[in-house]
């Protein structure tokens, strides 16, 4: 099969993975790729660990990504980056927000939130790109724009024109949030 690029987006249910996936899909369509995405819909995963798979190339068959297959692991929360590290392929890149959101076992005191996650990821020998996405999103106007800040970081690693991303935001994001999201994307 021809070369397929696999991007796995992970985060906490409610962080806006569906918008990120729609924007990615639109940009890839503009560039003539075959695209397959797999998303999590409904509220049942709210607050839980969620995964979105994005795969593109000349021809794509499966809509999901398995351990050892992802070229990029795009993480909206740091613990989720650690959780899904096994999905990264050899030579792949982790792009993660430094954001910490405590899961219930940490809130109830049953477990501790792991310390120094980014350092541990780097020590494991993978390339790690990280940013204080929450601060950048808030600077753009909303804490909810962490997803788009992270897309901005990913976009720098992909060979897709910036204008296509901004156009996709125009097409998909409701008008009153458009400028804020563009700012978040460019702020990254």
């Amino acid at each position, binding site marked *: 099969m021809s070369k397929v690029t696999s991007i796995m987006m992970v985060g906490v249910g409610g962080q806006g993975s569906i918008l990120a996936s729609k924007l990615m899909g639109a940009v890839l369509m503009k560039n003539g790729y075959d*695209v397959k995405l*797999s998303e999590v819909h409904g509220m049942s995963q709210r607050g839980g660990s969620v995964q979105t798979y994005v795969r593109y190339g000349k021809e794509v068959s499966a809509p999901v990504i398995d351990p050892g297959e992802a070229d990029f692991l795009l993480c909206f929360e740091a613990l989720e980056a650690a959780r899904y590290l096994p999905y990264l392929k050899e030579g792949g890149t982790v792009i993660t927000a430094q954001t910490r959101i405590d899961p219930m076992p940490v809130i109830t005191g049953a*477990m501790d939130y792991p310390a120094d996650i980014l350092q541990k990821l780097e020590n494991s020998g993978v390339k790690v790109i990280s940013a204080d996405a929450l601060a950048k999103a808030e600077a753009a106007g909303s804490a909810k724009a962490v997803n788009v800040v992270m897309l901005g970081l990913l976009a720098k690693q992909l060979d897709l024109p910036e204008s296509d991303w901004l156009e996709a935001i125009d097409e998909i994001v409701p008008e009153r949030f458009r400028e804020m999201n563009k700012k978040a994307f460019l702020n990254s």
Partner: protein
Amino acid sequence: MKELLLGNEAVARGLYEAGAAVVSSYPGTPSTEITQYASGYDEIYCEWASNEKVGLEVAIGAAVAGKRAFSGMKHVGLNVAADPLYTVSYTGINAGLVVAVADDPGMHSSQNEQDSRNHAKGAKVPMLEPADSGDCLEFTKLAFDLSERFDTPVMIRLTTRVSHGRSIAVTGGRTEREAVPYKRNIAKYVMMPINARPRHPIAEERTQKLIEYAETAQINKIELNSTEIGVISSGVAYTYAKEALGKKASYLKLGMVFPLPEKLILDFASKVKTLYVIEELDDFIETHCRKLGVEVKGKDIFPLTGEYSQNMIREKILGEKLPFKALEEALPARPPVMCAGCTHRGVFYALSKLDVFVSGDIGCYTLGAAPPLGAMDTCICMGASISGAHGAAKAVGKIGGKLPVAVIGDSTFMHTGINSLINAAYNGGKFVTLILDNLTTGMTGGQHHPSTGYNIMGKPAHAVDYELLCRAIGITDVKIIDPYDLPATIDAITAAVNGDESCVIIFRRSCVLQKTAVRGPALTVDEEKCTGCKMCLKIGCPATSMKKSTSGASGQKMAIDRNQCVGCGQCVTLCRAGALGARNAQE
């Protein structure tokens, strides 16, 4: 035009293009978006039905009257709709009738992972299975054509990865259809025994004709590559096989999974050396192959449970494993939780304190079974909370000295809980029913239902009055409580479970994710007062945690995540030190 569509969106587009006129469905993950997207087309009448049986019956009525009709549901919803399905198979249709059922291998959002292909076989109804969004659109249109050509309802089987996968589909225009003239035909449509007996053989003959169709149907496709390995597959499992094996295998992709072809399978089997059947869940295709005398490898190496993937197929067939890295330490799990500001939280806090028998139901509130609340004993299916509590009370009366409790959401109550409550009132059941009325179908993303006061288009509709309804069926003790008022919530439930008579308590407040929800600013913590006792954490809110003091005070202090907290104030009641800022939510 080439468009990137969600699988469910592509089914809706297929409904539009096929000229469907009536859609009636009950929401259920992963099927919900079909009907949501369909409601965006002015040409299609769409409605949320009170349950799947009702939805399918509405569609049957529309198809008999002469317009193309559709009903969509999740796999367990098809159990509810199985009654009309098995008989409309005998009557056949007038205009096309299509039923989509979305299975959930891996149980992303379901209480079981039953395989709906068994219902197709049981009901003797043909079933198509798309593998991606392109198939979804094409197969939906084809399903209507087959329905009319063979005088049968036609099912489309989806799975989570197809329903919630986005891929490219080619969209076109709508073909408007005049109503097929209706003529009374008692022998065909009135299924009393004398008419049903001759209709059964007609359904069996139809299956034989459909097998003939399946032998040459374009949706059953052979792709010849290496003949060392042959794969028979369908749906998303086919895409995994293709990903894993590429040109190392030849494929028979079955677009129609009931009835299955015979000659086509024998022909394919004769061309390949080792034949695998790759299908998620049951050994449906495999059993058919064995019946034909074809030797296949299937469930002897692949599981009957969960989802498949390309890695699984690579490993089982090629013996290849991809390398990967993992951190050594154990990471805390992140299970789904009730949202910050969830209106269900206080009710489950009260139930956990009271240690009563809780008969649960299907909805976001099933999360009340998870730590730290852990206040649930059973959850079986839609509506079972009330009938289950009734059964428990009839069997043993009080449990631990308290009346059993049924907990059910508003949409689930409208779905089937209402029948259970009528039964309990009629039979003198003595237990407590809590209706968690958050004014929406929360778990599937917020759909209207018969007691929200709005229809699928968001237009005003009659809202069922629960108090009147309860009184009409014979329950006179009915209270309404604001679930954000934790002391009132605890008092009402305590009094009810310690009483001796049946009662209904309605906890009414809009789901915090809905536009109608009132959200206040985040609460504040007075670190001077906070003693770090952690009482506030017992309510299990994701916006709360213990962190190192930000003001230099010693020890851990309660911290509020200002991006999550909506100021509902349910935790304020638990703070004995008075450290939490007063509730800011407006009434």
